[in-house]
């Protein structure tokens, strides 16, 4: 289909490997991953503990260097970026969400949302406007002056989501965003992520073993022992589930 079609992908992963040396043995955390992620899609990377989800998250997010292979973000090979460009990518192109929320403990909810905009050099007035709008959107305007320890897990994750979106990133990477939340709160967070995915057309990539994620994902990549077993559309997954049940 030529060059035009490649613009549909916001992330491309080619032959990605990450090996860790542990004494005499080599742990193959990622063992030859190939995948293309569409702009604006909601992709879940599912896999058991130790399958390599976090490692893949780190590679796509430019947080770690692969042993072999390449990651392209909007057609740019991120291995070729210098420290400055990498910081730029992390600040503006990608928003990160973690299982443990990782808010800055000494800052209020509002200050946490403002922080990435400071790095990106957004004007003070615009920072204020966007932070308040985002906190309102995630339903936490009332809690804007609360410190993280004064918020519940679900509320902290909402702040983290607002923070991840502050610089209007093309991609939001979420590593087990519901891992520390109860069933209902987890469901709310998943719903919020899906809504933001549709409203803002932001690509969402979650690493998870939360089956609730299946319902909102456009595609699911099944990861096992550092390899992608298969990538399915949601409809295909439903089909199988029904078949098993029937």
């Amino acid at each position: 289909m030529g060059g035009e079609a490649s613009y549909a992908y916001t992330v491309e992963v080619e032959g990605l490997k990450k090996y860790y040396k542990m004494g005499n043995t080599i742990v193959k955390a990622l063992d030859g991953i190939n995948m293309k992620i569409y702009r604006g899609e909601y992709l879940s990377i599912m896999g058991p503990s130790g399958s390599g989800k976090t490692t893949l998250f780190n590679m796509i997010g430019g947080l770690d260097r692969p042993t072999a292979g390449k990651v392209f973000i909007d057609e740019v090979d991120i291995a070729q970026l210098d420290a400055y460009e990498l910081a730029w990518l992390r600040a503006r192109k990608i928003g990160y969400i973690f299982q443990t929320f990782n808010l800055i403990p000494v800052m209020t909810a509002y200050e946490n949302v403002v922080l990435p905009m400071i790095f990106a050099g957004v004007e003070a007035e615009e920072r204020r406007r966007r932070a308040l709008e985002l906190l309102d959107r995630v339903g936490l305007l009332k809690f804007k002056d609360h410190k993280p320890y004064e918020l519940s897990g679900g509320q902290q994750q909402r702040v983290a989501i607002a923070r991840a979106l502050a610089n209007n990133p093309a991609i939001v990477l979420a590593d087990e965003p519901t891992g520390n939340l109860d069933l209902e709160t987890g469901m709310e967070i998943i719903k919020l992520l899906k809504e933001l995915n549709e409203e803002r057309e932001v690509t969402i990539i979650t690493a998870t073993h939360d089956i609730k994620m299946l319902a909102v994902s456009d595609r699911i990549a099944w990861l096992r022992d550092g390899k992608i077993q298969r990538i399915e559309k949601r409809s295909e997954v439903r089909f199988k589930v029904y078949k098993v049940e029937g």
Partner: protein
Amino acid sequence: MKKQIITEGKIYFPLSETLKLVIENIMKRLTRALLTMSGIVLSIAFYTTLMLTASALKYTLGAQQVISEYYWWMLFLAFLVSATGITNSVLMAVAERVREIGTLKCLGAMDKHILEMFILENAFIGAIGGVVGFIVGIIAAIVLNASTIGISSFFAIPGIEFLKALLSSILISTVLSVVMSSYPAYRAAKLQPAEALRSVA
């Protein structure tokens, strides 16, 4: 065929924002800051006591060489102990905040921003430690010398001597603190984000 990234705009962390974060960090983690500071306070107090006692003797008795070599060695040892204490304490502060550093890097912080943050934080802790140490030192000098050379001899010391002692206290403590925290700060700055985020602390 693949293109280069277009980095429109910049990555900033203005000093005013670093300062804000640094001050909040010191206040919210006061125990840690006080621990780092305690060694500085003690050694600066010792220094101030020696200086002021020397001044008092000089201006009341006209004595010149009043502090024995023994005390200078003691002072040197006090600074040595407080210096290693600072490095140790800042290493621990960095360890406590590894995940936070990883998060900051995800948000766009560069190595130099993290370095700046820790250096500035410890410059503050050092400066405050210098002031507190100076005050403790004055009190100690008066109390310790009350029965020998008498309190009144301290009133004979010209104001400029106090000022000199204060400024040198702040200067010594700040420089000591910055120098001794530079290695832990450098380690913090060099942390790899993926590794830092794995930390359980």
